[in-house]
Protein backbone atom coordinates (compact mmCIF):
# COMPACT_ATOMS: atom_id res chain seq x y z
CA UNK A 1 0.00 0.00 0.00
CA UNK A 2 1.51 3.34 -1.00
CA UNK A 3 1.49 6.37 1.23
CA UNK A 4 -1.16 8.10 -0.83
CA UNK A 5 -3.53 5.18 -0.52
CA UNK A 6 -3.97 5.59 3.18
CA UNK A 7 -6.85 7.35 4.80
CA UNK A 8 -4.45 9.27 7.04
CA UNK A 9 -2.91 10.89 3.96
CA UNK A 10 -6.26 12.51 3.16
CA UNK A 11 -7.19 13.49 6.71
CA UNK A 12 -5.62 16.90 7.22
CA UNK A 13 -5.55 18.87 10.43
CA UNK A 14 -7.47 21.96 9.28
CA UNK A 15 -10.41 19.73 8.42
CA UNK A 16 -10.56 17.74 11.62
CA UNK A 17 -13.28 18.84 14.00
CA UNK A 18 -13.23 17.04 17.31
CA UNK A 19 -15.99 16.73 19.92
CA UNK A 20 -18.19 19.27 18.21
CA UNK A 21 -21.76 20.30 18.92
CA UNK A 22 -23.37 21.05 15.58
CA UNK A 23 -27.11 21.44 15.45
CA UNK A 24 -27.60 19.90 12.00
CA UNK A 25 -25.78 18.29 9.10
CA UNK A 26 -26.11 21.59 7.23
CA UNK A 27 -24.07 23.28 9.94
CA UNK A 28 -21.35 20.65 9.57
CA UNK A 29 -21.26 21.24 5.82
CA UNK A 30 -21.03 24.99 6.34
CA UNK A 31 -18.15 24.66 8.77
CA UNK A 32 -16.16 22.36 6.49
CA UNK A 33 -16.97 24.49 3.45
CA UNK A 34 -15.80 27.70 5.08
CA UNK A 35 -12.51 26.18 6.07
CA UNK A 36 -11.95 24.32 2.80
CA UNK A 37 -12.79 27.37 0.71
CA UNK A 38 -10.33 29.46 2.64
CA UNK A 39 -7.66 26.83 2.02
CA UNK A 40 -8.55 26.84 -1.67
CA UNK A 41 -9.42 23.15 -1.61
CA UNK A 42 -12.99 23.44 -2.93
CA UNK A 43 -14.86 25.47 -5.49
CA UNK A 44 -17.41 27.98 -4.27
CA UNK A 45 -20.32 25.76 -5.37
CA UNK A 46 -19.21 22.95 -3.04
CA UNK A 47 -21.62 23.84 -0.26
CA UNK A 48 -24.68 23.94 -2.45
CA UNK A 49 -23.74 20.77 -4.28
CA UNK A 50 -23.01 18.73 -1.18
CA UNK A 51 -26.31 19.80 0.40
CA UNK A 52 -28.17 18.85 -2.75
CA UNK A 53 -26.46 15.52 -3.05
CA UNK A 54 -27.08 14.65 0.58
CA UNK A 55 -30.78 15.38 0.03
CA UNK A 56 -30.91 13.25 -3.08
CA UNK A 57 -28.55 10.49 -2.00
CA UNK A 58 -28.30 10.48 1.79
CA UNK A 59 -25.17 8.93 3.30
CA UNK A 60 -26.07 7.95 6.86
CA UNK A 61 -24.84 4.49 7.84
CA UNK A 62 -26.07 2.66 10.91
CA UNK A 63 -23.15 0.66 12.25
CA UNK A 64 -23.17 -2.05 14.88
CA UNK A 65 -22.65 0.34 17.78
CA UNK A 66 -22.38 3.78 16.27
CA UNK A 67 -23.84 5.97 13.57
CA UNK A 68 -21.76 7.46 10.76
CA UNK A 69 -22.20 9.41 7.56
CA UNK A 70 -19.95 9.80 4.54
CA UNK A 71 -21.20 12.83 2.59
CA UNK A 72 -19.50 13.51 -0.71
CA UNK A 73 -20.08 15.42 -3.87
CA UNK A 74 -19.16 15.62 -7.52
CA UNK A 75 -15.48 15.44 -8.39
CA UNK A 76 -15.33 18.80 -10.15
CA UNK A 77 -15.98 20.83 -6.97
CA UNK A 78 -12.85 19.47 -5.33
CA UNK A 79 -9.55 21.19 -6.08
CA UNK A 80 -7.38 19.49 -3.46
CA UNK A 81 -8.48 16.12 -2.17
CA UNK A 82 -9.29 15.64 1.49
CA UNK A 83 -11.30 13.66 3.97
CA UNK A 84 -12.78 15.91 6.64
CA UNK A 85 -13.48 14.18 9.95
CA UNK A 86 -16.03 15.45 12.43
CA UNK A 87 -16.73 13.77 15.73
CA UNK A 88 -19.98 14.78 17.35
CA UNK A 89 -20.20 15.32 21.07
CA UNK A 90 -23.82 16.05 20.38
CA UNK A 91 -25.10 13.49 17.83
CA UNK A 92 -26.29 14.86 14.50
CA UNK A 93 -29.10 13.35 12.49
CA UNK A 94 -28.58 12.17 8.91
CA UNK A 95 -30.88 10.23 6.61
CA UNK A 96 -30.02 6.59 5.99
CA UNK A 97 -28.25 5.69 2.77
CA UNK A 98 -30.59 2.80 2.19
CA UNK A 99 -33.93 4.18 3.29
CA UNK A 100 -35.11 7.77 3.04
CA UNK A 101 -37.56 7.23 5.87
CA UNK A 102 -34.89 6.07 8.27
CA UNK A 103 -32.71 8.42 10.28
CA UNK A 104 -29.23 7.72 11.53
CA UNK A 105 -27.95 9.49 14.61
CA UNK A 106 -24.30 10.05 13.79
CA UNK A 107 -21.33 10.05 16.13
CA UNK A 108 -18.81 10.59 13.37
CA UNK A 109 -18.92 12.13 9.91
CA UNK A 110 -16.36 11.68 7.13
CA UNK A 111 -16.77 14.19 4.32
CA UNK A 112 -15.06 12.81 1.24
CA UNK A 113 -13.54 15.46 -0.97
CA UNK A 114 -12.35 13.28 -3.81
CA UNK A 115 -11.82 14.12 -7.43
CA UNK A 116 -10.50 10.97 -9.01
CA UNK A 117 -13.25 8.41 -9.08
CA UNK A 118 -12.04 4.81 -8.96
CA UNK A 119 -8.53 5.83 -7.94
CA UNK A 120 -8.78 5.67 -4.19
CA UNK A 121 -9.90 2.12 -3.70
CA UNK A 122 -7.44 1.36 -0.94
CA UNK A 123 -8.15 4.54 0.94
CA UNK A 124 -11.89 3.89 0.71
CA UNK A 125 -11.39 0.30 1.79
CA UNK A 126 -9.45 1.45 4.83
CA UNK A 127 -12.25 3.89 5.64
CA UNK A 128 -14.83 1.10 5.42
CA UNK A 129 -12.58 -1.10 7.54
CA UNK A 130 -12.46 1.67 10.11
CA UNK A 131 -16.24 1.98 10.11
CA UNK A 132 -16.48 -1.74 10.77
CA UNK A 133 -14.05 -1.71 13.68
CA UNK A 134 -15.81 -0.65 16.88
CA UNK A 135 -12.60 -0.53 18.90
CA UNK A 136 -10.79 1.89 16.61
CA UNK A 137 -13.95 3.87 16.09
CA UNK A 138 -14.30 4.22 19.83
CA UNK A 139 -10.78 5.64 19.95
CA UNK A 140 -11.54 8.05 17.13
CA UNK A 141 -14.61 9.24 19.01
CA UNK A 142 -12.69 9.62 22.25
CA UNK A 143 -9.96 11.74 20.65
CA UNK A 144 -9.70 15.13 22.31
CA UNK A 145 -7.72 16.80 19.56
CA UNK A 146 -6.78 16.25 15.93
CA UNK A 147 -3.47 14.65 16.86
CA UNK A 148 -5.17 11.94 18.90
CA UNK A 149 -7.70 11.41 16.14
CA UNK A 150 -5.02 10.96 13.48
CA UNK A 151 -3.19 8.58 15.78
CA UNK A 152 -6.31 6.41 16.06
CA UNK A 153 -6.84 6.44 12.30
CA UNK A 154 -3.23 5.41 11.71
CA UNK A 155 -3.68 2.49 14.07
CA UNK A 156 -6.34 1.17 11.74
CA UNK A 157 -3.82 1.18 8.90
CA UNK A 158 -1.30 -1.04 10.59
Amino acid at each position, binding site marked *: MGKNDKLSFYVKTPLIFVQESFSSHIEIFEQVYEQALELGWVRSDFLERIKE*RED*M*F*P*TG*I*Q*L*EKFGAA*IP*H*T*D*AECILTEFVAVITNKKPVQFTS*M*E*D*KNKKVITDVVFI*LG*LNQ*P*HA*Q*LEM*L*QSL*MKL*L*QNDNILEEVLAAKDSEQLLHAIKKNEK
Partner: protein
Amino acid sequence: MRKIKVLVACGAGIATSTVVMKRIEDLLQDNNIDADVQQIKIAEAVSKQEGADMLISTTILPTQYKIPAITALGYISGIGADKLDKEILELARSVDQ
Protein backbone atom coordinates in the same frame (compact mmCIF):
# COMPACT_ATOMS: atom_id res chain seq x y z
CA MET B 1 -21.94 -20.56 -18.19
CA ARG B 2 -21.87 -17.30 -20.07
CA LYS B 3 -20.24 -14.15 -18.85
CA ILE B 4 -22.65 -12.18 -16.69
CA LYS B 5 -22.89 -8.43 -16.54
CA VAL B 6 -23.22 -6.66 -13.20
CA LEU B 7 -23.85 -2.97 -12.63
CA VAL B 8 -22.61 -1.48 -9.36
CA ALA B 9 -24.14 1.88 -8.53
CA CYS B 10 -23.98 4.59 -5.93
CA GLY B 11 -25.13 8.19 -5.91
CA ALA B 12 -22.04 9.79 -7.35
CA GLY B 13 -20.36 6.68 -8.78
CA ILE B 14 -17.36 7.75 -6.78
CA ALA B 15 -17.01 6.38 -3.28
CA THR B 16 -19.07 3.51 -2.02
CA SER B 17 -19.47 1.90 -5.44
CA THR B 18 -15.68 1.79 -5.81
CA VAL B 19 -15.41 -0.35 -2.69
CA VAL B 20 -18.43 -2.49 -3.49
CA MET B 21 -17.26 -3.06 -7.06
CA LYS B 22 -13.97 -4.51 -5.87
CA ARG B 23 -15.79 -6.70 -3.39
CA ILE B 24 -18.15 -8.04 -6.09
CA GLU B 25 -15.31 -8.64 -8.54
CA ASP B 26 -13.42 -10.63 -5.92
CA LEU B 27 -16.53 -12.51 -4.83
CA LEU B 28 -17.42 -13.60 -8.35
CA GLN B 29 -13.85 -14.43 -9.24
CA ASP B 30 -13.37 -16.53 -6.11
CA ASN B 31 -16.43 -18.47 -7.09
CA ASN B 32 -15.35 -18.92 -10.70
CA ILE B 33 -18.10 -16.80 -12.13
CA ASP B 34 -17.03 -14.92 -15.22
CA ALA B 35 -18.40 -11.41 -14.97
CA ASP B 36 -18.13 -7.97 -16.40
CA VAL B 37 -18.61 -5.55 -13.48
CA GLN B 38 -19.31 -1.95 -14.33
CA GLN B 39 -19.39 1.03 -11.95
CA ILE B 40 -22.13 3.58 -12.61
CA LYS B 41 -24.10 6.39 -11.03
CA ILE B 42 -27.54 5.24 -9.93
CA ALA B 43 -29.11 7.78 -12.30
CA GLU B 44 -27.58 5.89 -15.22
CA ALA B 45 -29.06 2.55 -14.18
CA VAL B 46 -32.25 2.87 -16.20
CA SER B 47 -30.40 3.41 -19.46
CA LYS B 48 -27.67 0.88 -18.72
CA GLN B 49 -29.81 -2.00 -17.48
CA GLU B 50 -30.34 -3.31 -21.01
CA GLY B 51 -28.06 -6.29 -21.40
CA ALA B 52 -27.11 -6.34 -17.72
CA ASP B 53 -28.02 -9.19 -15.40
CA MET B 54 -28.21 -7.45 -12.08
CA LEU B 55 -27.88 -4.11 -10.38
CA ILE B 56 -26.14 -3.74 -7.03
CA SER B 57 -26.55 -0.38 -5.34
CA THR B 58 -25.36 1.21 -2.14
CA THR B 59 -27.96 3.91 -2.38
CA ILE B 60 -31.74 3.99 -2.39
CA LEU B 61 -33.20 2.61 -5.58
CA PRO B 62 -35.14 5.55 -7.03
CA THR B 63 -37.25 3.44 -9.35
CA GLN B 64 -38.00 -0.12 -10.42
CA TYR B 65 -35.75 -1.91 -12.84
CA LYS B 66 -36.25 -4.73 -15.30
CA ILE B 67 -33.26 -6.55 -13.86
CA PRO B 68 -32.91 -7.83 -10.30
CA ALA B 69 -31.69 -5.06 -8.00
CA ILE B 70 -30.02 -5.46 -4.62
CA THR B 71 -29.10 -2.74 -2.13
CA ALA B 72 -25.75 -3.56 -0.62
CA LEU B 73 -25.13 -1.14 2.21
CA GLY B 74 -24.07 -4.16 4.26
CA TYR B 75 -20.74 -4.09 2.47
CA ILE B 76 -20.15 -0.63 3.89
CA SER B 77 -21.52 -1.09 7.39
CA GLY B 78 -20.32 -4.68 7.68
CA ILE B 79 -23.74 -5.74 8.91
CA GLY B 80 -25.11 -8.67 6.90
CA ALA B 81 -22.24 -8.74 4.40
CA ASP B 82 -22.13 -12.55 4.35
CA LYS B 83 -25.81 -12.71 3.57
CA LEU B 84 -25.28 -10.30 0.69
CA ASP B 85 -22.51 -12.47 -0.71
CA LYS B 86 -24.83 -15.43 -0.68
CA GLU B 87 -27.68 -13.54 -2.27
CA ILE B 88 -25.50 -12.20 -5.07
CA LEU B 89 -23.93 -15.57 -5.78
CA GLU B 90 -27.32 -17.22 -5.96
CA LEU B 91 -28.52 -14.58 -8.33
CA ALA B 92 -25.38 -14.86 -10.48
CA ARG B 93 -25.71 -18.62 -10.69
CA SER B 94 -29.36 -18.42 -11.65
CA VAL B 95 -28.64 -16.15 -14.58
CA ASP B 96 -27.84 -18.85 -17.02
CA GLN B 97 -30.71 -21.16 -16.25
